[in-house]
């Protein structure tokens, strides 16, 4: 998605902008927007980071101080150990990693079958998978929760186990849609050639389809990880054991008992992993936003 780097012709032409008055106006707008964006989007992070460094009295005093008077690093240590932030972050990472793995294996295999192997009634299955996109997820939370609590046929209870996050994450119609559409664009001849060379469907998927599909696999992976980190209602229902909770649910439960200074440190710590993840994968993440056929 390098195209946003290139200069395209926009509302205001370069010629218009080169007039002295327009130029002055442009620089004024820029001078307003740069600090405005910092105030709106960076300052809250600053407030969390410094709030976590203030003493218990300073953090709740009115009016608040803009800089901590003394740096109380111990708040961060307390948040990490006593508020079991380390546990919550580890849990969420395991859930996100597992959800990613299961989605990559099951959804890629399914989309490949629907696109290239096309078994009988494949279209019916595809339609049923895509139809779930029309169903509001929050409405299904209750019946899915009751299903996870006592899985039909096998009668096991998945609550408070990673499976309660991993397996439902596979039932994602959007993944199927994205992957199948991408696989459809891979020429049939390529696979037929592999078949002549004696490659079975699994070999063809592994050595031909997957290497070509790296961009879409990246998009699906990022969606999978971000979804687990951001989800709230579902983990709230299925993970009530404090030792098993995600960051979001842990923070919600901690908020009653914890002192404001340590809790603010906890808020900041819990925000760091995803922001680091974002800074590393920013190009893929921003590019992935338009991958969902949103180009119209």
């Amino acid at each position, binding site marked *: 998605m390098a*195209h946003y780097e290139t*200069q*395209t012709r926009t*509302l205001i*032409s370069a010629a218009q902008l080169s007039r002295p008055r327009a130029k002055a106006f*442009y620089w004024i707008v*820029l001078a307003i927007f740069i600090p405005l*964006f910092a105030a*709106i*989007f960076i300052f*809250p992070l600053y407030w*969390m980071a410094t*709030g976590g460094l203030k003493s218990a009295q300073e953090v709740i*005093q009115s*009016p608040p101080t803009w800089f901590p008077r003394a740096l109380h690093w111990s708040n961060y240590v307390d948040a990490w150990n006593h508020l079991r932030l380390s546990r919550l972050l580890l849990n969420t990472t395991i859930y996100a990693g597992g959800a990613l793995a299961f989605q990559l294996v*099951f*959804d890629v*295999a*399914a989309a490949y079958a629907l696109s290239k*192997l*096309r*078994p*009988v009634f*494949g279209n019916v*299955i595809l339609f049923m998978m895509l139809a779930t996109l*029309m*169903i*509001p997820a*929050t*409405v*299904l939370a*209750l*019946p*899915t929760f009751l*299903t996870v609590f*006592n899985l*039909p046929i096998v009668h096991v209870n998945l609550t408070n186990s990673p499976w309660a996050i991993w*397996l*439902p994450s596979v*039932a994602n*119609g959007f993944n199927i849609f994205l992957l199948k559409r991408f696989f459809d664009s891979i020429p049939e*001849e390529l696979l*037929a050639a592999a*078949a*002549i060379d004696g490659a079975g*469907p699994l070999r063809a998927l592994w050595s031909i389809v997957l290497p070509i599909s790296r961009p879409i696999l990246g998009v699906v992976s990022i969606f999978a990880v971000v979804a687990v980190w*951001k989800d709230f*209602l579902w983990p709230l229902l299925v993970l009530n054991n404090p030792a098993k909770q995600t960051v*979001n649910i842990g*923070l*919600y439960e901690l908020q009653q008992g914890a002192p404001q200074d340590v809790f*603010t440190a906890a808020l900041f710590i819990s*925000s760091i992993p995803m*922001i680091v993840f*974002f800074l590393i994968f920013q190009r893929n993440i*921003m590019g992935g*936003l*338009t991958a969902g056929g*949103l180009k*119209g």
Partner: protein
Amino acid sequence: MATINVSHARSIDLRTDRARRRRAPLASRLRRHAIGYLFLAGAVICFGFFSWWPIIRELIMSFQKTNFAGDTTWVGMKNFTRIRHDPEFWTAWRASIEFSLLALVFGYAVPFIAAVVLNEIRHARSYFRLLVYLPVMMPPAAAAFLWKWFYDPGDGLFNTVLRDLHLPTSQWLQSTNTAMISLVLFSTWINMGSGTLIYLAALQNIPGELYEAAEIEGAGLFRKLWHVTIPQTRLILSLLLMLQIVATMQVFLEPFILSGGGPEGKTTTVVYLIYEYAFHFNNYGSAAALGFVLLVILAGFGGAYLWLSRRGDEA
């Protein structure tokens, strides 16, 4: 040249192979279907347990009286009549609709305006794009608790700044007048990154000649915006409009963390009420019935959008 010859030979080869496959014996065709189903199995099982069956179960439960132990009786339409006579039913719908409408004014307009402005800015482009997306990547609970603290009428940051500027302060989440708008402001802040970046990509795809043509006809800034920018981004604008309405009608986290559904139940939205029915009152029947009503409305809305946009394509 050699490569062309090879590929030519291959394509002939393929043709005979296809012909062979068309006449493939039953056994090998069955094998192909069986392998296809093997590849589908994992996803189909997950969809079955965690999507298809819950959809059916939602429907069944809305006509049942049931509890956690699994004792069930059929009660016909009773769940629907009961929730209809619950005064909270109507306030919850009003709260969800109010949230959606306010989110249209802010959450829908702000990213588009931001994208149009950012698209004109020739400097610090990655700075703006990076910053606007930061909140999207925060754990929503962490962001919500931070904002709850900002909104505190006493020592909160917002009132402190307002006091310093000698402006009137607000009760924010604690007043029935401003609670909903406070939720929408937070929601706009945390979500606007996605919309802004999607619009920016769409704006980049507008052919520059259209603006030049408009200028030759003497169009000013706002005429260009109205006659070029908006029509050229119409599809993406309408798609995000539909997605946003469906999403905001399901708002849960904002009232749950920021306002606890209060004050005076003003911000108890439909999904919040479903949660209350199910997990505070253990009344799964009412929860399922209310969920079913929401499902029908939102699926109907999405279906109508698809139908209209398809018809628009044909016309």
